[in-house]
């Protein structure tokens, strides 16, 4: 075999895969067609656009820099690929007071505002696709959701029922400062000596805002709705 044949063979075998699974999918998914909603099927018009509110770009950067993706995923897999959807609060809420069963699998429009979908490496901790939903409806009360998250970030093992959590503490996202005049509204309820207060840094606030934006259980158009027929009745 000549050198030229060798290089040709190598390039062909690699190039085929490179085109088929890397380049062409990348190019086609850059311009994902937005889904048109139809009055008849979906009950409204316009395009399907799962809105996300919060500091997504800043928060995603803090999420990436601190390696949260190593232990948390952000993908709710369809039932052929795993049991994620069966859990009561991963794909949405099983018993949302307003909408009933809102659980759904992740779709391609769910990562709006992020450059790199933090699908995640492993699940030492639970999936975070609907963390915002979970915190607001289950974990936080009576606290405010963002306060609960800040408490959790500072030391995940503070709460009695999470004493076995292996989530790392993030005290470096907070700072202790002297109280000037009156204590600040946003001071943490613990962690500081007399005369000082513990406050979340900008990074912690951005991260919390991002985490609260993780609510991926909006109603989806019919073309994206893979729920079994019985569940489709609930809207």
């Amino acid at each position, binding site marked *: 075999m000549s050198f030229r044949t060798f290089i040709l063979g190598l390039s062909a075998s690699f190039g085929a895969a490179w085109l088929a699974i890397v380049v062409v999918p990348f190019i086609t998914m850059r311009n994902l067609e937005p889904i048109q909603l139809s009055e008849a099927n979906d009950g409204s018009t316009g395009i399907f656009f799962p809105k996300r509110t919060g500091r997504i770009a800043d928060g995603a950067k803090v999420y990436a820099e601190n390696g949260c993706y190593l232990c948390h995923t952000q993908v709710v897999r369809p039932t052929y690929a795993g049991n994620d959807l069966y859990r009561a609060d991963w794909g949405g809420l099983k018993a949302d007071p307003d909408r009933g069963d809102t659980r759904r699998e992740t779709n391609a429009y769910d990562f709006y505002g992020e450059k790199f*979908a933090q699908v995640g490496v492993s699940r030492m901790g639970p999936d975070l696709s609907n963390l915002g939903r979970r915190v607001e409806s289950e974990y936080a009360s009576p606290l405010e959701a963002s306060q609960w998250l800040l408490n959790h970030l500072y030391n995940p093992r503070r709460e009695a029922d999470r004493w076995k959590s292996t989530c*790392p503490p993030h005290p470096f996202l907070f700072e202790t400062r002297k109280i000037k005049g009156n204590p600040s509204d946003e001071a943490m309820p613990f962690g500081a000596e007399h005369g000082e207060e513990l406050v979340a840094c900008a990074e912690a606030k951005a991260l919390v805002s991002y985490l609260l934006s993780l609510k991926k259980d909006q109603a989806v158009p019919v073309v994206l709705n893979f729920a079994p027929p019985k569940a489709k009745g609930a809207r």
Partner: protein
Amino acid sequence: MSFAIQNSSDQDALLRAGIDRSLRHPVMFFMTSGAAWLAVSIVLGIIASAKVHRPDFMSGCAWLDYGRVFPSHINALIYGWGFQAAFAILIWLMARLSRKQCTSAGIILTAGHIWNLGVSLGLVGILSGNGTGMPWMEFPSFVWPVFLVAYTAIVIGSFIQFRVRPEGHVYISQWYLLAAMVWFPWVFVTANILLHCIPGHPLMAAGINAWYRSALIFLFFTPVALAAAYYLAPKVTGRPVFSYSLAKLGFWSLALIGPWAGMQKLMGAPIPFFLPYVGAASTVLFFVPAVCAAINILRTTLSSPEVVASSPSLRFMITGIGGLVLLGFAAVWLNLPGSTLPLTQFSLSGYGFEILAIYGFFSFVMFGAVYFIVPRVTGREWLSRRLIKIHFLFSVYGIITVAAVALFGGLQQGMGQEEWQQPWQGAATRAYPYAVATTIAWCFILFSNVFFFIHLALMWLRLGRRSLHPTLLVSDAHHGPGPHGEEGDIDNAGPGHAVAH
């Protein structure tokens, strides 16, 4: 030294010595620097692994946060140790097989230092909280062009050596080395440009990252290790490679299968349906090139059991090939869609598989090559067979533990994850003993590599034994004169001065 060398002409021996001398500085630099990065990465790995089962360990320090220390560990292992070991073997092997002295040692050394600078700055970047959050690509984005330029400077000489080689047989090792030299930049540039420079869909970015990770293992570390193994097996035993056709099958099956793997890590994610399935299928099919190469190399060595027993190079290389067989089985066992893939997709198995590939297969073969190359390049023999044995034994203990974690621990953890009726705590609890096992495994591996680094550093400083007799794992005092003459004392005054018993 192989038995076949007795028949080579003096001219050939002089040519080989000249090649070795020309490569002494770059090869020793890459090996010693790589071994240092290996030790650093293992220390980081121990800290990271300890934090999985003891999260408050060193928790006051932001730089040692798990989310920063773990990526530092893996990136130091890959780019600090893995690539530098690969460079050492690549430049030496290509020079020897192409019968050409190295004329760009200065450029290679400079590029090597630049590579080191890149790794150091990258690690500081991750630990200080400026990582990119893309697995295996966490170095801040200024690092990758530095790596690309340094890489090109390091391997271009080897590519040219191949092109101007004298007429004759092209060795199997040379196919694998050439392939690695073509595949890596293609993969590296693609992944970095599509993830850093061209905006695209966030999920495809994640998919291409998964493809990149798989491609590094199957299309760079695997071919470089196989090149070294296909050289060591016939060279040390003096027998020809068992089957040329099997070698061709192994190589071309790797070329056809390897590039498709990786995206099974995104099974169930909303990307085009065929991508994860093709990824899973090709990872499972990796079994074919793995087993072909393993059979070929092991059958080559089977014919000389006494050489296998005594040669440190062969012992490490064969263990590495055993790691390859295990990797091939693990690739099948862990990636079956519908049965094991949902369990292993987000579990410890991923990390275990990667460490099995990088340490259990690639590193062991690299160690074998190091134990072969260093005496030739420095003109000294290894100082102590005991140091070699400690390096071997403790690394084996460690890697067997890691393999068990990957194959069983990840499945256990995955089964816990899939028990959707149980609270999440159950799944996390299942992982706990395997996390402890991983920390212990890394401790064993650190212990072994401290000895390796010390031994290697002493050789680098030219403090090895001056002797005609290589340091073998069994003393042949009972077997009469071997091919090197009578076994003698440590011969530091030079050949011919020691008294033989």
